[in-house]
């Protein structure tokens, strides 16, 4: 019983750990690859910058939700 009640907590912690690693790599990549280009756009083409900014945010939101859902599903499958 005790083991069963600890399982969701363990899964959540594991999911967070994997997610944190993915996010750390992603943030590093995004900041390094996009920062100069975005800064350039922000300085020279504000209209394009606005479009790129909102698109990036929407794509990232959907992508991250997909990753968390997948991680949760994958870890549950592995624990069965």
């Amino acid at each position, binding site marked *: 019983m005790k083991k069963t009640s600890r399982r969701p907590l363990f899964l959540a912690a594991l999911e967070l750990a994997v997610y944190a690693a993915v996010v750390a790599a992603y943030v590093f990549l995004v900041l390094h690859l996009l920062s100069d280009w975005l800064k350039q756009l922000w300085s020279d083409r504000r209209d394009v*910058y606005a479009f790129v900014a*909102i698109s990036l945010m929407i794509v990232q939101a959907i992508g991250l939700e997909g990753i968390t859902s997948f991680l949760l599903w994958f870890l549950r499958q592995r624990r069965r």
Partner: protein
Amino acid sequence: MFFPISGVQIDPVYLIVCGFVIGVLGGFFGVGGSFLAAPTLFAAGLPMNFVVGTDLAHIVGKSIVAARKHRALGNIDLKLAAVMVIGTIAGSEMGVQIIELLKKAADVTLVVGLVSIIVFTGISLFSAWESWLTLRLPGNPKGGLPATKDTLAFDFFSKSIQRLKIPPMISLPHSGIASISLWAVLFVSLVGGLFSGFLGGGAGYIRMPSMVYLLGIPTHIAVGTDLFEIIISASYGTVRHAMNGNVDILIALVMQTGASVGAQIGANLTQYFRGPHIRFAFAPLPLLGAIVIAYGLITRHHA
């Protein structure tokens, strides 16, 4: 870490952790979380005009995640959201124009900060008072209730507004409202949009309580619908502010990585609480935001 667009140095872990906390609160209370995100960014040294735009951008992403969860829980009234979007966008545009005028004519940080403090404190006190009265009502059910059922100790405004017969009238069956004037819904959303454009964020801290206290929408539906509506209004506000150079999208993207997980947790938590409990728990949050802004204004800390 240096963010070249706004020219500030902020620790990305600070942004991710703040995003996570704001995500949990936003998903649970149906707000963008700008009453905390804005002071958090301001305290980190971001200039106030960047705070307003960047906060909006981060809210778009977080609200997409939370709204998808609320949709699955049946907490979104799509008809109400569709009507409110019109008023919100008009109001948001007015708010953005006011910010631009202030940038030329006055100390924008001081004006936005002072207005934020007054608005946040007022909402906080009213929510605390009303939900406390509701929780003390005799016969207040202890168990869970369906999302369309809610109890309010102070329903004078919502009853009066629902009695207004200014055509065209619309029905909101998902929210349990047989008839309400379209103008009343548009007015509430216009005021919410105005604050969204002016103070930043999705203005859920204004709109969610307004939907409950002025329109009589059940709290759970107000939470879900507000988040859905915030996606559209905050997207519009983000584009407008980005065109004026007030968005550091790199900061918003980093914050959103934490908010994405938090928002899912917050949205799932709403199914375990009743409306008055959600409103009572919501009450101290805007006050907290007001205190942080006041602290920022006093110290004027910039990295």
